[in-house]
């Protein structure tokens, strides 16, 4: 669900086909019949944007029919935990949870908390900073009812929350027939037990919604109930869309994170000193209790000898966030003249951003813009090639932005590593020098850093302290085969892996990291990739038939399947012989199996949780989910989410239906972030007769993202040469349109033209008693390159999820008319 695996991950899909040929049943639930559907055992249609209704109904089916994995649920999830009396569900409050502030459009989650026992005073003195801070925040253990009968147990709350998510409701909301839904429900439940596991693969079809995080959570909840997490062949698998998008996230390309999923300190929060910050971030009853060790080690890696206990390890040199700096906020600030300059590296927001014409407006307000890309992409050419400039509504001479274009390398011209969807680091070699002045992003960043350090070297200003003390030595290890020398891969990997500050020797893994400044480590989760000076485990290339532990290096600690302690029963024995994976070897008194155990290696299954203990000591020998507080799956999330503890069905901001039939008072997510104040960014709301059709946008195999790396290549451009709109024959006949005819597609945000591609792969669905038509359009086009066309992203609105600010591009509404745009593209 939520992914077009075959088209967007065509290489990884070989493993799906292999599974299919080994007898696995592949179900594809999707608004469109795609190349993935073609390769699957069954295809089930649904209306775009209604995944939570579908999965919520699966959850309800599992609970109502007693199909959940009882021993797993009682021991490995928070189903038995008791929630506070103050908590009120969407069933009580007509579609919202308790704690909602309508003015702020935000929740106060105090009432979602567990009922807790009295805290136990820890014994003895804390051994280090991490332990001391953890103790300060230690609360009592959550109260439990292992019979799952307590009316305020998570299990009963969930049961009530999803009780109206029935197969009939799925038919009404999603347009999926009851029979098709039940086929999915029966297939999934029959395949989830001690002998068998089911996996869910998802991608942007789940994430890109104003409730994207909740959609993924609904999948995780279902898998928790079915006992499919931490077991071989289970899990919910996020399919990452680029070779190294996982690596980029791990190493913190996100605005609010530091490497290894540590947080950026924020201005305005209680983050004044290192200790304040760590106290805020401390999660005392999980592995995250080690947080201080990882942050202090980053500071040591970045500021070296200048980071000392006396100056809080240079904590103050870390930039603080001033608010929300996510992509759309950043462009809003550019539009408002707050951000004056921008470096765009490996991105093409002029056509790739939602409401792309707004992005171009914002780019036009900048003083300067640096674009670094292999081709002269639309973000570099917007000021003379954009449709609004071509048709005269914007004059090139009125755009004051000074644009610098820097030619970039492609992947074969650099060395380094990719981290893929499986968190697997694999090195790659440089094949050739880049042509002309093309330089890698790494080369550019390193040189820029050197030049900036040179500029700041005489400054005594406090704000420049960080620049002047940043460790910045990645001088190339000269490779005589090439003329262009890249910064030293070895030095970078070693810093990422971590090393002992006194001896300079690499650490063996994150278990060696300390919070006293004796270790440095650039990204704790990658620690162990270079355990010895001359051993880069990402270069390992020893395959085998199963978990290939000597092929590359998977973070953390080369574990291939996260939380794999859950593949064994609470007593440490495998759930079944067939699904045997990690188990307790009573003789050797250690965990063993086919993978690296994701658990304390010698912590016996019968180890009790230490009363008043912190970190893993607070968890028992049967708690597999060690990164979570209390060591279990959080079916109900008492904290951490902006939009509710349980996933709830809401309609997208543009929806073809008149209301949310589950909660008529609450059609849309109450916390959805709508950028209403931006120009041309109107949402259509419910059942807007001007925009009767659902439109969903996506990628095809032949192109990549905004086309920046494919539309310039003639061999790829000719495979998908023109922008097209996929429409069903039923809608085509209503509109009098044939394949190849031009159609105009319009939303409240923009108007574009495309060729029609009439296909029975698109199908109208009966929703709310009427036929709802969905049209589909790939996002890859723009005005520069070999294959050019209208900008599909001119159609979508900037609206976002409140947790991670992901946009909504999979389900909005539009109108379609036969014919071209008058006077060309506007």
């Amino acid at each position, binding site marked *: 669900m939520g992914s077009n695996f075959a088209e967007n991950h065509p*290489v990884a899909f070989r493993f799906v*086909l292999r599974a299919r040929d080994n007898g696995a049943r592949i179900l594809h639930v999707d608004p469109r019949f795609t*190349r993935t559907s*073609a390769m699957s055992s069954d*295809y089930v249609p649904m209306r775009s944007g209604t995944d939570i209704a579908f999965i919520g109904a699966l959850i309800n089916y599992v609970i109502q029919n007693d199909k959940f994995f009882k021993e797993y649920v009682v021991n490995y999830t928070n189903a038995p935990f008791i929630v506070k009396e103050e908590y009120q569900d969407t069933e009580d409050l007509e579609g919202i949870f308790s704690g909602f502030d309508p003015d702020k459009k935000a929740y106060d989650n105090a009432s979602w908390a567990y009922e807790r026992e009295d805290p136990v005073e820890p014994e003895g003195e804390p051994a280090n900073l991490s332990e001391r801070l953890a103790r300060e925040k230690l609360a009592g253990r959550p109260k439990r009812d292992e019979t799952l009968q307590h009316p305020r147990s998570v299990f009963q709350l969930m049961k009530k929350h999803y009780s109206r998510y029935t197969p009939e409701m799925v038919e009404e909301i999603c347009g999926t027939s009851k029979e098709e839904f039940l086929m999915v429900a029966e297939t999934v439940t029959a395949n989830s037990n001690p002998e068998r596991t089911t996996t869910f693969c998802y991608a942007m079809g789940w994430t890109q919604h104003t409730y994207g995080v909740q959609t993924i959570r609904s999948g995780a909840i279902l898998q928790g109930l079915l006992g499919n997490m931490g077991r071989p062949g289970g899990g919910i698998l996020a399919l990452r869309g680029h070779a190294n998008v996982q690596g980029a996230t791990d190493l913190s390309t996100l605005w609010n994170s530091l490497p290894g999923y540590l947080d950026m300190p924020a201005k305005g929060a209680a983050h004044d000193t290192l200790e304040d910050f760590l106290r805020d971030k401390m999660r005392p009853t999980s592995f995250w209790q080690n947080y201080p060790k990882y942050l202090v080690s980053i500071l040591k890696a970045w500021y070296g000898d200048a980071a000392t206990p006396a100056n809080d390890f240079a904590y103050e040199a870390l930039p603080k966030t001033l608010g929300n700096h996510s992509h759309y906020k950043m462009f809003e600030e550019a539009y408002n003249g707050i951000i004056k300059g921008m470096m765009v590296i490996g991105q093409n927001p002029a056509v790739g951003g939602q409401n792309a014409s707004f992005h171009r407006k914002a780019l036009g307000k900048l003083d300067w813009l640096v674009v670094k890309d292999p081709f002269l992409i639309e973000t570099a050419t917007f000021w003379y090639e954009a449709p609004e400039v071509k048709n005269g509504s914007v004059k090139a001479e009125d755009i004051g932005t000074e644009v610098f274009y820097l030619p970039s390398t492609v992947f074969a011209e650099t060395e380094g590593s990719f981290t893929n969807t499986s968190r697997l680091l694999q090195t790659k070699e440089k094949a050739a020098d880049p042509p002309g002045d093309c330089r890698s992003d790494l080369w550019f960043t390193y040189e820029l850093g050197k030049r900036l350090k040179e500029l700041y070297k005489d400054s005594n200003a406090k704000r420049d302290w960080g620049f002047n003390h940043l460790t910045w030595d990645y001088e190339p290890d000269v490779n005589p085969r090439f003329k262009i020398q890249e910064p030293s891969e070895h030095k970078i990997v070693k810093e990422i892996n971590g090393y002992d500050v006194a001896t300079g020797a690499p650490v063996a893994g994150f278990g060696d990291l300390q919070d006293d400044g004796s270790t440095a480590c650039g990204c704790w989760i990658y620690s162990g990739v270079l355990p010895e000076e001359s051993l880069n485990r990402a270069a390992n290339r020893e395959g085998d038939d199963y978990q290939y532990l000597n092929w590359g290096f998977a973070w953390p600690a080369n574990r291939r399947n996260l939380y794999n302690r859950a593949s064994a029963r609470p007593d440490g024995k495998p759930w079944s012989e067939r699904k045997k994976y990690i188990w307790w070897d009573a003789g050797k008194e250690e965990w063993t199996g086919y993978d690296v155990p994701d658990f304390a290696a010698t912590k016996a299954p019968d180890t009790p949780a230490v009363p008043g203990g912190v970190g893993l000591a607070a968890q028992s020998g049967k708690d597999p989910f060690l990164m979570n507080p209390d060591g279990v799956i959080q079916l109900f999330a008492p904290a951490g989410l902006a939009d509710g503890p349980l996933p709830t069905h809401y309609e997208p901001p543009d929806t073809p239906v008149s209301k949310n039939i589950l909660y008529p008072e609450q059609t849309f997510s109450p916390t959805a972030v709508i950028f209403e104040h931006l120009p041309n960014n109107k949402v259509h709301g419910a059942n807007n007769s001007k925009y009767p059709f659902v439109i969903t946008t996506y990628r095809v195999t032949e192109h990549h993202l905004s086309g920046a790396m494919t539309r310039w290549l*003639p061999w790829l451009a000719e495979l998908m040469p023109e922008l097209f709109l996929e429409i069903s024959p039923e809608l085509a006949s209503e509109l009098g349109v044939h394949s190849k005819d031009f159609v105009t597609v319009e939303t409240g945000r923009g108007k574009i033209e495309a060729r029609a591609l009439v296909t*029975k*792969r698109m199908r109208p669905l009966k929703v709310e008693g009427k036929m709802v038509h969905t049209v589909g359009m790939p996002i890859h086009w723009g005005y520069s390159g070999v294959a050019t066309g209208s900008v599909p992203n001119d159609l979508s609105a900037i609206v976002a999820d409140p947790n991670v600010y992901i946009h909504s591009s999979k389900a909005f509404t539009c109108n379609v008319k036969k014919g071209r745009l008058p006077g060309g593209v506007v």
Partner: protein
Amino acid sequence: MTQIESKKGMFIDTTLCHGCKACEVACKSWNELPANSAPSLTGNSYDNTGKLDGENWRHVKFIEDISDDRKDSRWLFLSDSCKHCQLAGCMSVCPTNAIIRTEFDTVYIDHDTCIGCKYCITGCPFGVIEIGHLSGTAEKCTLCYDRLQAGQQPACAQACPTDSIEFGEVEDLVTMAKKREQYLQSAGYGKAQIYGDKNILGGLNVFYMLEDKPEKYGLPSDPQMPQKTMVGGYWSSVFSLFAVGLVSLLSFRSYRERKFKEEEETTTGA
């Protein structure tokens, strides 16, 4: 006559093809075939290549086989190319012997000898060959003859992410295909069938596993050597010649008769 050293071919299993077109791109890249300079959407599913020709030696077909009520929905993909037939029609009609069988038992067009007469185009029952715009000679898949000589597999097979294109010794591939056919038929692909066994032109070195009958994929169920189809052509030519002669004789006669009649009338009237 070339000494056949080994019989190389490809087994293309359509049940593993997800239509990514990596084979098309790998083919063009390795063989330096030009891209269409003004490509446009064909409107035929996701196929914007259209057909095999001088610049497209590999073509992924997209067949949407979907009933109106969508109850039966299939989208079939077939990566098509020269089949390197045992009984190669193109080779048999080539007047300059430019089409040869290589040491790998594959069918190869020697561009130095080709005179661009196009006989092979009509000689191929699969519509594989066309004149290349740049070379002016007949062009088609060489099974990457140059790569084979260097001990490598064809570019398409190398690029295929799902091993839908398997390269190897034809004998091994046939064994593999038969096993696969059995498996597929037991796994719910009731109509799975091998296309290109001995019964098709003496065996195709590049052969297929289809999910359905060949016609679904636009493949002839019983392709013939050109000589065989030409027998009919020959007789029809002879017949046409005879008929043309007869018609002209008849029309000449009727002209004479009319003329004679006119003359007679003129005489009478006078």
